[in-house]
Each structure stands twice: as C-alpha cells, then as structure tokens.
C-alpha cells in the first residue's frame, strides 16, 4: 500500500506539488494525468525517495520514504522520466548491474536478466551499447530495469513515450498482466492509455489533486456522456426538429455531425431512433456517445487555470 500524506514540494518559492494526499491499494493501476508541469514527475520522485518532500511524507508498505528511504526503495521498481541509463554499457551489462543492485541472489541474476530481456523484447540488442539504441528501445531497457526484481510497487513515468504502436500495445499488456496484487502508478499524456490500463485516475494540475476517479467515472462526467451523434442529410432541419424532444437539452452541429445532448430524462437514443423512423431521414451514421476523456480533462484542468 502507498499512503501519501500531505506531500508538498517547493522549488525556491514555487510550489510544484501542493498538499497531495492519497492512498493506493494492491491491485490498483493508477494513472497520473495532468498538463505539463503539473507535478506528476515530482510526486513520483518523492514516492521513490529521490527527492525529499518539503513537508509531508509517504509510506510505502508502511515504511516511511523519508526516514527509511533505502528500505522503502526495496519495494519499488522505478522508471524515471526520460528513461535514463548508462549509455556506454550494453543492455546485458546494464541489467546485470541493476539486478545486483536490487539484491537479487547471485545465482538468480542471469535468469532475472534474461526474463526482463524477454518480456521487453530486447533479445536482439542485448549486446549493443545502450547509447546506440533507438529511443523506443532505450525506453524498453528502462522498463526492463524497473521490473527486473519483480517489485510489489511499480512507478513508471511515461512508460510508453516513444514506443511504436505495437510496442505500446505490448507494454500495456505487460502492465495489465502484472497488475494483480501489485500497485502500479503510471504517468501519461495519452488518454486512451488511461482507459486501456488504469482502473483509477488522478488528475493533477499545478501540484493539486483535482479529480480522483475510475476512468469510467471520469468519462461519465463528460457532457458527451449518453449524447447521441448522427450524420444526416439536411442537418439544420433535423436539429431544429429534434430539439423539440423533451430528452434533448441541446443540439450542436459541428463538421457535418449533429450531436444531441441529453436532459435528465432517460431514453434519448430511443427517442432519436424513433424520430428518424417516423420522418424517414437519410442517416448515414448514428452512435451513442460514452463520453470523451479529452473533454473531461480539458474542462477539469481549464477550470483550475482560469480560477
């Protein structure tokens, strides 16, 4: 379990993280979302014992990250932002160094290293100096390094940044496969990644926690949640006609697509399909919206910026 207690971090007078408290339980995959400079990486640096909080602290499996930093770090695997590694070493040398540093028993080091190499598809480059690898491969070396000791807690700062679509999918699969009984915290700017791997999301902006919810819960906050979008001939006419329905709060026409937002009344979709049938409108696309995470993200973080 991770317990962050009023974490604060100031750089000079500037508050990068401002009174952040939360707990994360085993089995949770928590995504940190937030604009650039929100304080996501800074929070991770404090959880992993790299930076001392200006005030507040965090417990990692009941071990204080400030007072017993080294003991706390044993529980954690960490991919720092930008996936730094020693470029002059080969992948194999580097991972062997990390395995020893992670106090893996000497006899089990080669096996752990091979395992990590296999999981991240690094077999073909394992004898290559890291500095000669492409960006995506470097990121995968960073990930291999983080999981090599099968830690109970994984903290990954932008794990899929720079990966190609296939690798992204594979890394997400890897994260999901490890998620059981573990705590995984990732930060990302890719909203679909949050939906794909996280079961909890924290939106952070200007160092403060603005929302803490499941991805589904966040999506429900979208004004698009349960809205109906359709592409139809003569949309203006259709829009004014549909606006009469009691289930329609508002109709918006954008780039040829008509979106109808629901009122508190249920059954918008049914009402719209019925109206289409009655009036014989020529509809080429029709869908029920689940909600849009980018719009929720925008409205939550914008509100803060203008406040």
């Amino acid at each position, binding site marked *: 379990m991770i317990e962050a207690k009023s974490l604060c971090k100031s*750089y000079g007078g500037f508050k990068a993280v401002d009174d952040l408290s939360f707990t994360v339980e085993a089995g949770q995959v928590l995504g940190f979302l937030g604009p650039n400079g929100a304080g996501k990486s800074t929070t991770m*640096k404090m959880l*992993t*014992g*790299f*930076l*001392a909080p200006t005030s507040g602290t965090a417990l990692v499996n009941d071990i204080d990250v400030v007072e017993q930093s*080294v*003991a706390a*770090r*044993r529980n*954690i695997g*960490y991919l*720092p*932002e*930008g996936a*730094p*590694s*020693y*470029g*002059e*070493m080969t992948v194999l*040398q580097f991972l062997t*160094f*990390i395995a*020893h*540093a*992670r*106090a893996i028993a*000497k006899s089990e080091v080669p096996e752990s290293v091979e395992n990590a190499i296999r999981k991240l598809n690094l077999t073909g480059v394992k004898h290559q*100096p890291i500095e000669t690898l492409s960006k995506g491969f470097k990121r995968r070396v960073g990930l291999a*390094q983080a999981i090599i000791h099968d830690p109970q807690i994984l903290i990954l700062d932008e794990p899929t940044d720079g990966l190609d679509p296939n690798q992204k999918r594979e890394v997400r699969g890897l994260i999901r496969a490890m998620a059981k009984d573990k705590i995984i915290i990732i930060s990302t700017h890719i909203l679909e990644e949050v939906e794909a791997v996280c079961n909890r999301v924290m939106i952070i902006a200007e160092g403060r926690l603005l929302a803490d919810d499941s991805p589904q819960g966040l999506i429900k906050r979208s004004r698009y949640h349960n809205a109906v979008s359709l592409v139809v001939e003569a949309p203006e006419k259709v829009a004014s006609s549909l606006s009469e329905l009691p289930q329609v709060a508002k109709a918006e026409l954008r780039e040829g697509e008509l979106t109808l937002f629901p009122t508190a009344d249920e059954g918008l979709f049914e009402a719209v399909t019925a109206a289409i049938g009655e009036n014989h409108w020529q509809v080429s696309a029709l869908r029920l919206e689940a909600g849009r995470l980018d719009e929720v993200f925008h409205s939550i973080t914008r509100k803060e910026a203008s406040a």
Partner: protein
Amino acid sequence: MSAISNVMRRELTGYFATPVAYVFLIIFLVMTGIFAFYLGNFYERGFADLNPFFRFHPWLYLFLVPAISMRLWAEERRSGTIELLLTLPLTTMQAVLGKFLAAWLFIGLALVLTLPMWLTVNYLGSPDNGVILAAYLGSWLMAGGFLAIGSCMSALTRNQVVAFILSIVVCFLFLLSGLPMVMNLFIGWAPQIVLDGIASLSFLKHFADISKGVIDLRDLVYFTLVIGFWLLANVLILDIKKAD
C-alpha cells in the same frame, strides 16, 4: 555482492568502455616520463632513486585527477542517471564510495603501469626500494585526496567543465597552502595557530615526508582525513541538491 563494489565495478566497466581510460593512461605515462627524464634529469643526476619521478606527481595530479573526477557526478546529473542510481536501494554514501574507489583504483592502475621506471633504476643501480614503495603509497594516497576534492566539486554541477575548473582551484589551494607564497599572505597578522593549521593542510608537505621514505602515522591520518572530509561533503551536497 555489496552495494559499494557493485557501483565500483559498474564505474570501472564504464571507464574501459570508452576511450577516456586509455587516453588518460597514455597521457599519464607520457607525462610522468617527460617530467622525470627532462625536467628531473633522471639520468644525469647519477643517483639510483625515483626522486625526480615522484617530485612532479603533485603537479601532474593537479590537472589529471580533476580530468578523471569531473565526470563522476556531473555526468550523472547531465544524463539523469543520478535519479536511477539514487533510487536503487543503496545509501548515498555507498554510491559515493563506490564511484570514488573505482576512480582511485584506476589511478592506482596508472601508477602500477609506471613500474618499468622502478625496474630501470634497479637495473641501473641499487636504490632503496623501501623508500620507493613508500613514495608509491604516498603518491596514491595524495591522488585519493585530490580525487575526493574532485568528486565533491563534480557533485556541485551538471557541467563537467565547471567541475574541472572548480576542482583545479580547490586542489591548487590545498597543494600550495604550505608554500611561502601563501604563508606570506598570513604571516604578520594571523595568529600562530592559524599559520600552523594552514601549513599543515599542505599536500606537498605531507607527500614530501612520505616520499622520503618516512611513513609517519600523521601523514597517513592526514590524507585519510582529507579524503573522509571531502567525501562526506560530497554526500551532503548530493543529499541537499539532488534535482537539476
């Protein structure tokens, strides 16, 4: 494997994975040779000892040791690996010691490679090998002192050039602190105890003792203290200023 030796081995692998190590070793050997033979009149003196060879070591170290130490922490900061290293389950002290020992062993290796010099004097005459051994030990200890200063300076910045210059300046002060040109600045106004204090800080004075073959406990303690002090400062600097 202990955390310190793991870090140390990683560093050493790093040295030899790049040309830095070989360039350094070659320059070190060429320079010691030049100093001993040309400036020190190794042959013409007619004595079978290595005095001219050791006499220039402090001056050689003044530039060569900072060249080794400048990357120790500045490079970790620049590349961001400091965040990786210091979130592994090891203390900052273990990381500092591991890196320091690697660099110190490396300089030790450079010294070992000058052994042909020793063989030569033994071939030409019959030197006091005890004195020479003591001088080697003293030289290596002094290199440790320079290195500890350099490591600490390197932790202050992410820029290797800045680390290099800072190290040279501080090492220079330590080197010269016993010479008349520095002491004259203080004589006349500073109390005797301060004068003694400053004079006793000098690398040159302590090295001179050892290189004469006198291994005085005080000189050993002196270099050990210098190394300990600067490495502790190194740890403190890292702990206070980890980011950027």
